[in-house]
């Protein structure tokens, strides 16, 4: 199965229900693309259908209290079938098994003990195979981000689960990965993000009141961002420094990076989806609440939280790996039903069109290095910009001047010219398009000239084009 065969809204903005409650009309107005719904039984089918009508992709988890590593009960399986019959595809069951609250009181929760992870993985695999058999996508268990070396430790759990699957269920797990599985993660990112000051350099950080989601310079790649690397050189998600002895996954892509690395290394995974089924920037609880979990990074406020969250979603669409599909913010009541009213982020998202995530046709299993991890150390011999037929050319003239001035590509009107260029020349085409012409581009460029690198920018508003091009200028990267 290829990454682009998963069916979803392509909009990385998500919201988590407050238990089983979500206001879909509000999410639609605020332009969300995911709805994570904790279902108490089959009672949320109408909610899921409502979401799908609004092009919001639902993820259903049937709630069970303290499930531990027990098998999924037959009633839950029946209910998953009912949701699938209603059109839901994305499912989740085991949730944060590294936390005590998810286990019966007194249970052994040691991730290094096969008596603990074995049954968990046996039962998860059986459930995943069931979900796949009914045409759904099963989530690999999410974990809370804890980096302390105890029985809660995220990386210990990841290794424990995957090592067991490698030793005992290698082919079964690969089959599941290749037939619709995805990885659930819970990226609560604290204040591990910042926006550069204009012309301030990569370690400059705007104070909260100057942050602006319509401008570039945002960093969400912690711990690999310039501020952390300047403070603790060489720190990775695995740690590797005295200040981070057990890893550092508290970030947008922390657990995703660890899990994806290990899946590649152990199971030959190419690209399968990662979805934040909880997470986001923990919302302030009131107008006076200023959060600064890590004092190396700026704090955020009731108001700047909106800018950062909007920017985070755009960053997911433009900069995060192609397999990172979005985050469901935790959770609806903390955003919309607070004592101080609705957080500003909803209105901000309503003002700002979502950036659509471009998803390439990468295989679930197989070598994707040449496609994804190629480091473009040199510019291509020839770089063209191409506006698809019927694209609003005025948007290009309104939004692309700085990009043009920085990278000086050529502007191509007729694709036939590409056939004149000798194949030993490296050629890249940045094609600017609406969502409806992506297949056309594949047919008319990738299939005709496979050696040409097709770099697609998908927009449905001029501001979205400006933002994507501005981000490229800021990071000095002409291609996405």
């Amino acid at each position, binding site marked *: 199965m290829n990454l682009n065969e998963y069916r979803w809204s392509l909009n990385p903005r998500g919201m988590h229900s407050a238990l089983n409650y979500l206001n879909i009309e509000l999410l639609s107005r605020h332009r969300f693309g995911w709805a994570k719904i904790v279902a108490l039984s089959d009672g949320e089918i109408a909610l899921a259908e409502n979401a799908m009508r609004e092009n919001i992709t639902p993820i259903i988890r049937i709630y069970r209290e303290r499930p531990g590593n027990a098998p999924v009960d037959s009633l839950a399986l029946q209910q998953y079938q009912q949701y699938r019959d209603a059109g839901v595809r994305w499912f989740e069951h085991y949730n944060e098994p590294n936390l005590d609250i998810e286990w019966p009181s007194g249970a052994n929760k040691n991730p290094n003990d096969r008596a603990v992870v074995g049954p968990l993985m046996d039962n998860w695999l059986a459930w995943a195979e069931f979900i796949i058999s009914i045409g759904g996508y099963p989530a690999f268990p999410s974990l809370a981000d804890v980096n302390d070396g105890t029985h809660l430790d995220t990386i210990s759990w990841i290794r424990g689960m995957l090592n067991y699957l490698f030793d005992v269920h290698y082919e079964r797990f690969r089959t599941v990965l290749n037939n619709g599985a995805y990885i659930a993660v819970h990226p609560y990112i604290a204040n591990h993000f910042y926006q550069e000051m204009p012309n301030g350099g990569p370690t400059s950080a705007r104070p909260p009141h100057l942050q602006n989601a319509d401008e570039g310079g945002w960093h969400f790649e912690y711990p690999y961002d310039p501020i952390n690397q300047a403070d603790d050189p060489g720190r990775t998600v695995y740690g590797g420094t005295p200040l981070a002895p057990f890893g550092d996954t508290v970030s947008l892509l922390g657990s995703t990076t660890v899990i994806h690395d290990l899946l590649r290394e152990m199971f030959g995974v190419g690209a399968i989806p990662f979805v934040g089924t909880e997470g986001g920037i923990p919302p302030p609880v009131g107008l006076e609440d200023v959060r600064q979990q890590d004092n190396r990074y700026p704090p955020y406020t009731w108001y700047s939280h909106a800018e950062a969250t909007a920017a985070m979603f755009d960053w997911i669409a433009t900069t995060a790996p192609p397999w990172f599909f979005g985050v469901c913010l935790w959770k609806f009541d903390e955003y919309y039903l607070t004592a101080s009213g609705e957080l500003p982020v909803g209105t901000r998202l309503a003002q700002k069109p979502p950036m659509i995530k471009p998803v390439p046709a990468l295989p679930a299993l197989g070598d994707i290095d040449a496609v994804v991890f190629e480091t473009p150390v040199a510019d291509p011999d*020839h770089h063209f910009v191409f506006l698809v037929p019927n694209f609003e*050319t005025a948007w290009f*003239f309104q939004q*692309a*001047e*700085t990009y*043009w*001035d920085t990278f*000086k590509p*050529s*502007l*191509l*009107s*007729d694709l036939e*010219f590409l056939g*004149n*260029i*000798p194949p030993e020349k490296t050629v890249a085409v940045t094609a600017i398009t609406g969502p409806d012409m992506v297949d056309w581009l594949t047919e008319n460029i990738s299939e005709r000239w496979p050696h040409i690198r097709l770099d697609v920018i998908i927009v449905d508003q001029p501001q979205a084009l400006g933002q994507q091009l501005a981000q490229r200028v800021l990071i000095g990267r002409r291609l996405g």
Partner: protein
Amino acid sequence: MGTAVQYHFLYFAPGIGARWFFEGAQRYWQTFRPIVTYDLNLIEYTPADESVVVTTIARSDTADFVREEMQKRFPSVRHDALVYDYVNYVLLTLEARAEQNHPFGRPLGQ
């Protein structure tokens, strides 16, 4: 009008900023859709038996360079040379061409 032009390039000389294209040539490009480039090497990829016109835009300080490059490298290509020191004059010229549907300027006698 003679042989139909198969390839039309709009070339900006070294030192010409993007503003000259974005402010000076928008309507011209939207009307005639030339290949816009800072890279004369692209002209090498045009077949020898095809009709090619290169409209060049240069300031007076680089005009000779552009003319010599075109003569030396592409002697059989029609060179439509525009030399201006201000983007407003580029705009006036190219707007007129778009208005009159003459991508290479109105021929003498017409």
